[in-house]
């Protein structure tokens, strides 16, 4: 059975649609995560999405909805308690540790498929049902629309908060909205690569793009392209090698792009 056979199957098509959507949203938010120094916030949100997914699985057999609830909860907590950058990281650390413990506790009550836990942690894009795909599409569209609307003021507020505030940008409110967008994006990405590996799509492509250009528009575009190559490339590679999870390929491709960008970067990037 070759790749062509799989591409005619509904499960593979669903996976590719979901993967593309996830890559698009991750690529869009990535540069902001990097510029705002929020890599740890992404990781913390993802860990709590795991707790939420475990809860969702147990209560309603719906890990996606559970993950979303968990991610939104942590976004809310960070926005209330972690206004200052340094405080933010310790707050995230505290919640992350407790949340993971809770997740393991919840999973110990789960009597369903034994693979459920691994799927939450490392992704299960081929298991996405039609209903879940609908939810993922809705979330992805929401993130894309919000990000395209807020792109310019959010960049201004992230790079130069003081002047942005003086020019009338609601810097604090934008920060909260971005945390919510992050929660939605993390929930999406967790479906493809799992909660443990979200950073490979939400950070790595943007970090690689940043190595290659100082132009924010170019960085944004490259970040999306890199995320797409990693996500879709990883899915296709996994279809071709059935026994290995797509997240393995996604993280490997994403990492390879980063290494290449680091090597090529100094020659391409304009320096003063």
């Amino acid at each position, binding site marked *: 059975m070759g790749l062509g056979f799989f591409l005619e199957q509904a499960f593979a098509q669903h996976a590719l649609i979901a993967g593309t959507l996830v890559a698009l949203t991750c690529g869009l938010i990535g*540069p902001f995560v990097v*510029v705002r120094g929020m890599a740890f916030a992404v990781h913390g949100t993802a860990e709590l999405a795991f707790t939420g997914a475990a809860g969702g699985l147990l209560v309603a057999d719906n890990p996606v909805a559970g993950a979303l609830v968990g991610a939104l909860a942590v976004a809310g907590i960070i926005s209330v308690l972690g206004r200052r950058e340094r405080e933010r990281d310790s707050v995230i650390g505290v919640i992350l540790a407790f949340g993971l413990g809770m997740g393991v506790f919840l999973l110990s009550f789960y009597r369903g498929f034994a693979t459920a836990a691994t799927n939450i942690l490392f992704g299960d894009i081929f298991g996405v049902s039609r209903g879940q795909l609908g939810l993922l599409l809705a979330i992805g569209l929401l993130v894309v629309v919000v990000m*395209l*609307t*807020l*792109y*310019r*003021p959010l*960049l*201004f507020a992230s*790079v*130069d908060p*003081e*002047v*942005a*505030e*003086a*020019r*009338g*940008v609601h810097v604090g409110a934008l920060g909260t909205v971005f945390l919510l967008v992050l929660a939605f994006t993390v929930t999406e990405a967790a479906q493809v690569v799992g909660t443990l590996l979200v950073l490979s799509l939400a950070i790595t492509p943007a970090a690689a*793009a*940043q*190595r290659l*250009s*100082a*132009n*924010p*528009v170019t*960085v944004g575009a490259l970040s999306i392209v890199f995320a797409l190559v990693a996500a879709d490339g990883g899915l296709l590679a996994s279809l071709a090698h059935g026994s290995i999870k797509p997240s393995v390929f996604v993280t490997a491709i994403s990492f390879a792009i980063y290494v290449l960008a680091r090597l090529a970067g100094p020659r391409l*990037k*304009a*320096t*003063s």
Partner: protein
Amino acid sequence: MAAWRRHAACEVAPGRPVVRLQEATLGHGGRTIWEGLNLAVSPGEFLAVLGPNGAGKTSLLKVLLGLFPLTAGTVEVHGQPPHRGRGCVGYVPQQRAFDPDLPIRGRDLVEFGLDGHRFGLPIMTAGKRRRIDGALRSVRATGYADAPVGRLSGGEQQRLRIAQALLTNPALLLCDEPLSSLDLSHQREVSSLIDERRRQAGTAVIFVTHEINPVLPYVDRVLYLVAGRWAVGTPQAIMTTGRLSDLYGTPVEVVEVGGRIVVVSAEEIAGEPLEQGHHIGSPAEREQVGG
């Protein structure tokens, strides 16, 4: 002045001040920061705002930006109460360190001054590019416009800040310690650039600073804030032993050394003169004076 187009809403009627404060009082958390402030700033005027830490210099700028409401009295900018996000006011902050890897070039920082606050994507048009290039030329920053901001010197960054603030040709330019952390030659460059522009375009400048000396040649009037009290007038009238001792409520000596004005507390005259114009006494005393 005709060379500098100004948006009609930012135009100041002839003979009218750009900024007018009447009996303006600002309080914060039950404490009065300054009280009964009367001030009118004319187009093209250079006003330096001096005073110890905590005297409410930055807060004054925030009031003019529409970010802080007054506790009492009135404030007008271009004949209207200030409100958040009006493009008619330019703002230059203190120089700060950007990450060297930050994916923002000099011209991107300047571009924010044009439409950074508007929703949507940062799409470049020929018209925008012309305006940004013009602004970069006017501060002589074309040579490093495409370099990442995090790799530029403090002086270069502040030139870009000025281009950013002046891109919309505001009638009022607010500067919050734009020279601090710059070396002496960059301080001179940046302040002469601001002076040049306000003369060409009739821009009123309100310049908050710790140190009057770098801008002394340009300053028309000084607003000196101390512990809720204030004094306004020419530097010759305000920067005197009598006026400042009055204002601080404690003996202060103003001395001129080689064309520089130095303010020292009378008790410390025997000791080393305090370098910065506002410093009075030991940190503990200063807090009493400022608070």
